[in-house]
């Protein structure tokens, strides 16, 4: 299973935000690597927001939920807000019945809305700083 090591989830930067789209099934090792890559990228780019796109994900089980919640918590510790975008309707239905909650993660319908949401919340933080 050597080729597994070449699996990578790209992380792009636009304005003050990092954008990543999960297109391959996450497994433990990849998830750990993805978390580490994201945190390093946050540090390097001084990003203020993170968008995770899950349009390509067809199953959100308790494992991937935990990974997403952990990422948002870690990003928060580094001062970064996370928005999850692109959740398919059937996944939203399944998640609610399943009973898991994406605690601490903002959501938006799509990438565009996600970016506007982040612009809003990061601007608020800037204004608060300026006033103070």
């Amino acid at each position, binding site marked *: *299973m050597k080729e*597994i090591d070449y699996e990578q989830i790209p992380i792009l930067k636009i304005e003050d935000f990092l954008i990543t789209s999960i297109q391959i*099934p996450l*497994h*433990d090792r990849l998830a750990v690597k993805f978390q580490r890559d994201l945190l390093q990228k946050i540090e390097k780019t001084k990003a203020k927001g993170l968008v995770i796109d899950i349009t390509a994900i*067809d*199953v*959100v*089980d*308790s*494992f991937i*939920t*935990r990974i997403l919640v952990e990422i948002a918590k870690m990003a928060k510790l580094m001062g970064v807000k996370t928005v999850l975008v692109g959740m*398919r*309707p*059937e*996944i939203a*239905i*399944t998640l609610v*019945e*399943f*009973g*898991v909650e994406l605690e601490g993660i903002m959501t938006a319908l799509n990438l565009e809305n996600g970016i506007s949401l982040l612009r809003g919340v990061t601007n608020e933080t800037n204004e608060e700083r300026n006033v103070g």
Partner: protein
Amino acid sequence: MDDERVVEVKSEYDIVIARAVVRAIAKDMGFGLVDQTRIATAVSELARNIVVHAGEGIILVREIIKGGSRGVEVLAIDQGPGISNIELVLRDGYSSKGSLGVGLGGAKRLVDEFEIKSAPGKGTTVRIVKWLSVR
């Protein structure tokens, strides 16, 4: 009807295969997208349970017919340590290995029938069924 598929589950990569096989069968049988997702999510939990608790096992998928209804039945079988308190593992919030604690209980809510047979040292068999609703 020999439409029976067996997926050996030995590593977490097999979890992805198991749910893809189940989804394909459910889709062929005429299950809608939401039901396919419910079934695939439940199977994902069962397969992960095998990998985490037993190390290896099998997932068996087949079409069943009962009283004129068609359904998909999935058996998750392992020879692992077994479960001593089944009620406890089905309770929300219960987690033995640092997961979210919704795994099996959550999976149960996504299907029509859910059954666990297990005893300490005797392995675990989980059986789930989703019926195709008649329209």
